């Protein structure tokens, strides 16, 4: 590490300062999750008892199950819609306006999307539950998949697909035989990103969920509003590490730079 920073000079300060700022609160949280005492701020000794208590909490387990269902279903929808859209935009209809619309759900304020979806479901008299959360999550997840797959499509050569089309392959055939294998890393990265985004998403789930099917972030929200507890620390540690792990795996399929 010393060697890495040797040319930085005073720029080391903001770089390491920013990293300290980003990781210190998380580090303290993880550290406190192994505290033996149930006093949230006093370290008494190492223990994993709070992790054990999580497994015996029906609320958390239900939330976890609901979140898993939503994340898997939303990811499947998002990958199908996002991939088709990315291929369509890259190969069949180059349009800056359509591209902007396709990516908007990813950058639009979540609160605006959330109230819009709530309004829509209410007007359709659609009962709120896990399915409405799935539909809503697929909306912004698909935009992220579109962005990642489209980025990959711009890098790869489209001449193979054209050759397949010239040889009489249908667009759908060329898609499955040529395009799909070449964008596979982007698809995996998009799916993993979509999965974690859904896993951690709170605002839209909060608005579009029914009262009887809380997702894990909704359970966490109801817990953190009542202050600090070692149980939340343990749950938070597991959730943070899960997301971080999935993102690191996603990055192996993709350079960070491509996401910007």
């Amino acid at each position, binding site marked *: 590490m010393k060697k890495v920073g040797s040319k930085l000079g005073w720029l080391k300060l903001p770089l390491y300062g920013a990293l300290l700022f980003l990781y210190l609160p998380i580090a*303290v949280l993880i550290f406190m999750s192994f505290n033996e005492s149930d006093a949230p701020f006093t370290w008494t000794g190492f223990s994993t008892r709070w992790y054990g208590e999580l497994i015996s909490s029906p609320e958390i387990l239900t939330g976890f199950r609901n979140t898993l269902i939503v994340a898997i279903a939303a990811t499947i929808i998002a990958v199908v819609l996002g991939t088709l859209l990315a291929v369509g935009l890259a190969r069949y209809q180059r349009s800056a306006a359509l591209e902007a619309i396709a990516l908007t759900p990813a950058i639009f304020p979540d609160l605006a999307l959330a109230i819009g979806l709530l309004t829509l479901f209410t007007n359709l008299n659609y009962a709120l539950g896990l399915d409405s959360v799935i539909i809503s999550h697929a909306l912004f997840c698909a935009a992220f998949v579109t962005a990642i797959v489209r980025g990959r499509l711009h890098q790869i050569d489209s001449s193979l697909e054209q050759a397949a089309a010239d040889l009489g392959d249908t667009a759908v055939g060329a898609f499955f035989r040529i395009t799909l294998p070449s964008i596979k890393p982007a698809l995996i990265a998009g799916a993993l990103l979509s999965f974690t985004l859904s896993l951690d998403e*709170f605002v839209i789930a909060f608005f579009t969920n029914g009262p009887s099917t809380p997702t894990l972030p909704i359970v966490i929200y109801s817990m953190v509003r009542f202050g600090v507890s070692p149980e939340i620390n343990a749950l938070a540690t597991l959730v943070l590490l899960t997301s971080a792990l999935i993102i*690191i795996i996603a990055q192996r399929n993709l350079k960070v730079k491509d996401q910007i």
Partner: protein
Amino acid sequence: MAQALVKTERDANQRRALISRSIFLIPGLAYITIFMLVPLGFIFFYTFLTRGTYGGVEYIFTLENYTRALDSLYVGILMESIMIAAAATLLAFLIGFPTAYAITKLPSNWQNVFLLLIVLPFWTNFLIRTYAWIVLLNTQGFLNKGLINTGLINQPLEFLYKPGAVILGLLYAFLPLMILPIYSALVRIDPAMKEAAINLGASPSQAFRQITLPLALPGVLVGAIFVFVPSIGNFIVPELLGGGKTVMVGNLIRDQFLKARDWPFGSVLAISMVVMLLILFFLQARVNKAVLGEKSG
């Protein structure tokens, strides 16, 4: 005969192209239309309606929701939200620019490692990252304990439940969104331009000010929008770190839809927020165009 054949074949090709274009584009665009564009249309339409007794709306046309939004109470909250979001954005720039600049000075394989370290927290649970600050800043939290142990203070300080805590929480949440676009603008700058400036007699600091800074401007603006937009509509950070004492537009909108059940008024607030953001996007696009135009000219 031959011409007719060519024509039918061309027609068939065109039809096939249209069908494949539709297969790829229509599902996604239809989804976005139904679940984003139509709902936004609903919200806009609602701004002219009257609130229903039990939530929802009654179809009585009115402009009252707009006049109500101009009440000094709500204008005050909007102003405070803008100030808080702007403060978080400014701080993110002051920390983010040198950080992004430092990353560009690293060997390229290390650049990816550090970029990943910067974005990794951003992709994790937002609620938990906000909650982590309560653990740290609480009156019994680590910061207070550390300060008391070192003898700097005798009594624990209340860091939370102030606008400053909200700014800190937003800065923490969205700092990576400032660093990434600035980094990507900085790495795209051709080093030859800076060298040329220095060869022509510019000092390194002059070259930095006259070459690097202006060319990084589009990245800074994207970063500023990426931090400002989610900050102004946020209701979690004001609630958890502001303790409900600092009310932002996001809290107001949330409450109108879920608590007060005044959807038309909530819609006015939401539409004002969206319009403000659209203006920002428009301005950013203009500046971007101006800077890029200058470069090519």
